[in-house]
């Protein structure tokens, strides 16, 4: 049986069905898991270049204690952030949408109790800065 081709997805632009499949309603893995960890995804649209986004993320993490950045082997444009206390693992991946637009995808596995702090106080605010806050394509 052919493997689902994640690399394929990196090279092409996202199409309408890729977008639709992002819905959390399609992720029925919740039916199978009961644990102390929460799996969450959030996505943002941005006009920034992927390299710049990842640089900003790395620069921010450099200043935070007990968090490291690793390469994300599964994505050509992505990094993995790990809380050294074992509270969370976050994968940040960038997908091209169209023209200069990209989708920043953040997948988090965090401890239900206390695992979300880094996301809430550091990473999410940074990504909101980099995100397109209105749908207008105006320059």
């Amino acid at each position, binding site marked *: 049986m052919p493997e689902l081709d994640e690399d394929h997805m990196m090279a092409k632009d*996202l199409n309408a069905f890729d977008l639709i499949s992002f819905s959390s309603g*399609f992720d029925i893995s919740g039916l199978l898991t009961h644990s102390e960890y929460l799996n969450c995804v959030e996505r943002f649209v941005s006009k920034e270049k992927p390299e710049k986004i990842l640089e900003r993320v790395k620069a921010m993490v450099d200043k935070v204690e007990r968090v490291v950045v690793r390469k994300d082997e599964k994505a050509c444009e992505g990094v993995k952030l790990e809380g050294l206390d074992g509270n969370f693992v976050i994968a940040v991946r960038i997908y091209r949408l169209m023209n200069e637009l990209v989708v920043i995808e953040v997948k988090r596995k965090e401890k239900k109790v206390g695992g979300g702090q880094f996301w809430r106080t550091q990473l999410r605010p940074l990504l909101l800065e980099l995100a*397109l806050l209105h*749908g207008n394509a105006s320059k």
Partner: protein
Amino acid sequence: MGCFCSKVSKQIGVEEEDSVKLSEETVFSVSEIEAVFELFKGISGSVVDDGVISKEEFILAIFNNKEKDNLFASRIFDLFDVKRKGVIDFGDFVRALNVFHPRTAQEIKINFSFKLYDLDKSGFIERHEVKEMILALLGESEMKLSDEMIETIINKTFLAADPNQDGKIDKNEWEVFVTKNPSLLKIMTLPYLSDITTAFPSFVFHSNLEDNDVVA
């Protein structure tokens, strides 16, 4: 002799015959069916203990939140509920999870995904349905796209997915499109299903078939 055996029988009892039948109809082994049954019991009893999964219980299991209204989870619920009873029974549950198993054939996943996106069950995935789904997705996320951007994305997609350019994607066009873009079927596979018997270490399973061997 069967003190232990009949206890186990009673627990799995009603499902025993169904377990074998369901195993034959799906890629699950009998002990995997029994593991799925434990999972089913947890979900079907979470709001009302009535042996079936209601829409509310389904949403609760996925989102950990009863109140969430989600177009896509509703579509999946409807496809699980093949008999249109408004609830999912054990047989429905097993047959539907079967679609998501890693070992299940691509054609079955392709068929299911086509039905998923064909919101009005017209036999076609129409442009307005794709737009509705994109808008639903944007409504539940932080992503912001203008109407113009959405139209551009849909145009590009239909150029690729709708070669006869009649504004709708039929079953054949969908098969061709998905074959060229296998990442679209990612949502149709739950890798955890391969390990379902190890996912519930607190439960000890004895398939009735194995017990009979021991007793004899």
